[in-house]
C-alpha cells in the first residue's frame, strides 16, 4: 500500500513538474526576447543615438558655413556622411545578429558569397566542426575577412578555403587573383592579426605560384601549456 501511495504521489509530482517546466519554457522565451529587445534598445540608443545627434549638429554647422567657409563646410559634410554610414552599419550589425557566428556558418556563407560574386570555390574543411569553440570563432573571422577581401580586392577566378583541425588549427583563404602580399594591412587584416596574436597564434600573407594566400595558425595549446578553450572562456 505504501508503495502504491508513493507511486501515486510521485506520478502527480511528475505531472506538476512537467507543467511547471512547460510554463518555464514559455516564460524563458519571453524573457529571452525582452532581454534581446533591451540589448538592442541599448545598442541602438547608445551608439546610434549619439551618432545621429552628431550628424544633425554637423549638418547644421555645414549649412551655416556653406556661404562663408566652403572648405570647412565640406569637411563637416564629409564627417556627417561618414557618421551616418557608421550609424547605418550599426543598424545592420544589430539586426543581422552579425555578432554570433559559427565557423561552419561562416564557411557556408563564404561559399554562397563567392558563388554570388562569380568566383569559384574549392572548400576543404572536413573536420571544421571539431575545431574547439573559442578557436572556431577566430577561425570564422579569418574566413570572413579573407573571403571579404577576395570578393573586394582580388578579381580572382577561384578561391580555396582550407581548415585543418589539429594543433595548431590552420585556416587558409587563397585566391588566384592579382593580390600583392606586400600591400600594407588595413583595418581588416590588422584587427584579425590582433585577435589571433592575442591567442598566441599568427597571421601570414604571401604570394606564391600565382596565388595570394592568407592563413592563420591558432594554437590549441598555448605556449605556456594552457589549453585555448580555457583561455577563450575568460
Amino acid at each position: 500500500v505504501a508503495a502504491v501511495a508513493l507511486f501515486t504521489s510521485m506520478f502527480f509530482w511528475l505531472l506538476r513538474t512537467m507543467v511547471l517546466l512547460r510554463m518555464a519554457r514559455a516564460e524563458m522565451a519571453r524573457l529571452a526576447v525582452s532581454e534581446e529587445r533591451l540589448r538592442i534598445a541599448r545598442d541602438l540608443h547608445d551608439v546610434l543615438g549619439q551618432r545621429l545627434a552628431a550628424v544633425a549638429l554637423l549638418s547644421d554647422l555645414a549649412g551655416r558655413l556653406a556661404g562663408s567657409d566652403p572648405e570647412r563646410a565640406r569637411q563637416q559634410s564629409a564627417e556627417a556622411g561618414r557618421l551616418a554610414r557608421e550609424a547605418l552599419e550599426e543598424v545592420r550589425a544589430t539586426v543581422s545578429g552579425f555578432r554570433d557566428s559559427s565557423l561552419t556558418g561562416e564557411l557556408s556563407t563564404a561559399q554562397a558569397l563567392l558563388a554570388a560574386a562569380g568566383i569559384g570555390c574549392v572548400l576543404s574543411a572536413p573536420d571544421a566542426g571539431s575545431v574547439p569553440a573559442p578557436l572556431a570563432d577566430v577561425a570564422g573571422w579569418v574566413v570572413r575577412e579573407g573571403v571579404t577581401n577576395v570578393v573586394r580586392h582580388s578579381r580572382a577566378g577561384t578561391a580555396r578555403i582550407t581548415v585543418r583541425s589539429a594543433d595548431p588549427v590552420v585556416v587558409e583563404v587563397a585566391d588566384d587573383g592579382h593580390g600583392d602580399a606586400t600591400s600594407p594591412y588595413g583595418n581588416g587584416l590588422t584587427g584579425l592579426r590582433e585577435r589571433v596574436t592575442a591567442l598566441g597564434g599568427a597571421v601570414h600573407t604571401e604570394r606564391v605560384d600565382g596565388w595570394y594566400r592568407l592563413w592563420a595558425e591558432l594554437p590549441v595549446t598555448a605556449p605556456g601549456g594552457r589549453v585555448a578553450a580555457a583561455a577563450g572562456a575568460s
Partner: protein
Amino acid sequence: MIRVLLAEDQGMMRGALATLLELEDDIDVVGLLARGDEVVDACVRLTPDVAVLDIEMPGRSGLDAAAELATAVPSCRVLIVTTFGRPGYLRRAMDAGARGFLIKDSPVEQLADAIRRVVAGETVVDPTLAAAALRAGPNPLSAR
C-alpha cells in the same frame, strides 16, 4: 559616356544620387524613375548602358524589373541597390541577371566605380551586404 538610368522611389535619395552621378565626368543620367513598373518601358526607349534599380518600389520591385530587362533589353546591365540585405535578395538579384548588388549609401566613388566595372563586364557584389543578405536567412545553403 556611360548612360545610366536610375529608379528609386524616395525623392530625396533619387535627387541626391542623380546629382552625384552627374558630377562624374564619364556618367550621364539619362532617365530618372520613381516606380518599378516604368523601368522596362523606359529602358526600351532610352537603351541605357546600366540601370541602377532600388528593390522596393511602388508598382514593381527592382528585382522583378531586372528579370524582365534581361530579355527585353539584354544590352542593359543591372545594378541593384538596397538599404539592407534581406533574406533571399542577393540570390534573387543574381538569378534575375543583375551584375551588381550594392548598398544604397555607398559613397558615390564606389557606386561610380561599380557602374564602370559592370559596363566592363565584371560582377560587383558588396561583400558585407551580401553576407548579411545570406546570413539573415535560416540557412543559406538549404535555400538553393
